[in-house]
C-alpha cells in the first residue's frame, strides 16, 4: 500500500480544517477546525514515521496530542466565558474593537 493515499488524506483534512476556520462563524466550529488541522498534522507525522522507518514521528505525534489537549482546554474555557458574558458564540458578534470602542 502506498503512502500517497495517506498524504492525500492528511492534506485534505488540513484544508477542510482551514475551510472551516475561514468560512464559519460559530466559535465551536472554529475551535474544532483548529483541532482538526492539528490532528491532520499528526496523521502526516505518523505517515512520515512509517515512510522513514523512524519511530520518532509517532513520538512527536504523541507530544502533539498533549499540545492539542492544552489548546482545547484554553479554547473551551474561552468559549464558556464568552458565551456567559454575551450569550453568543458568533465570532462576527465581536466588532467593538473594529468600531474603535473603548
Amino acid at each position: 500500500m502506498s503512502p500517497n493515499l495517506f498524504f492525500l488524506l492528511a492534506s485534505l483534512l488540513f484544508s477542510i480544517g482551514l475551510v472551516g476556520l475561514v468560512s464559519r462563524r460559530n466559535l465551536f466550529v472554529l475551535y474544532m477546525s483548529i483541532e482538526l488541522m492539528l490532528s491532520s498534522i499528526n496523521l502526516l507525522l505518523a505517515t512520515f514515521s512509517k515512510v522513514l522507518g523512524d519511530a520518532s514521528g509517532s513520538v512527536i505525534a504523541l507530544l502533539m496530542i498533549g499540545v492539542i489537549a492544552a489548546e482545547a482546554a484554553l479554547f473551551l474555557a474561552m468559549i464558556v466565558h464568552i458565551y456567559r458574558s454575551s450569550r453568543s458564540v458568533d465570532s462576527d458578534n465581536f466588532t467593538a474593537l473594529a468600531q474603535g470602542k473603548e
Partner: protein
Amino acid sequence: MERRLVVQGIENLLEISIFTILALFMLGGSITMIMSRQTIFSAFGFLVAMIALAGIFALLDARFLAVAQIMVSVGAIVVLSILTVLTINMREENLPYERHKYKWMFFSFILALPITLLIYKSATAMYESFKTMEAVTSKVVGKLLFSEWVLAFEIVSVLLLAAMVGAIVIARKEIPKHEIPKEERA
C-alpha cells in the same frame, strides 16, 4: 509460495478497504463538522473523525499512538467538547445566523486548494513507498520518549499546566458586578 502471494494479496486488499472505510469516515465526519448548523452535530462529526483517525494510526503500525488517540483525543478532548456544548445548551436563536456560509466555504476552498496540493505534491514527490519497520509499540515509544524526546516531553507538562491555569483564570466566574467600581464596567 503461491499461498503466501494469495495471502499477501488478500492482506493488501483488506488494508486498502479498511483504509478506504476509515478515510471515508474521517472525511465524512470532518465535512459534517464544518457544514452542520447545529453545534452538537458538528461535535459528533468531529468525534467520528477522531475515532477514524485512531484507526488509521493503527493501520500505520503506530499502535501506541492509536491507543493514545482514543484515550486522549476521543476520550478526553472530544468528550469534553461535547459536554461543553451540552452544558452551554445553546438555543436555536443564539446560534450565529450564517446566510452566506456555502459561498464562503466555496471561496475558502479555492484558497485552501493550493495549500492542499502543495503539501500533497511535495510529500509524494519525495517518498513512494513505506519502509518496513517494527510496529511502534509502547516499548519503542517509551524508549524514545525518555531518551531523545525527554525535554519536549517535560515541557509539554509545563504547557499543560500553563494552559490549565489560563483556562481556570478565563472560565472562572467573574467578580460580582456590584463589587466593581462603575468606571471599570464595560
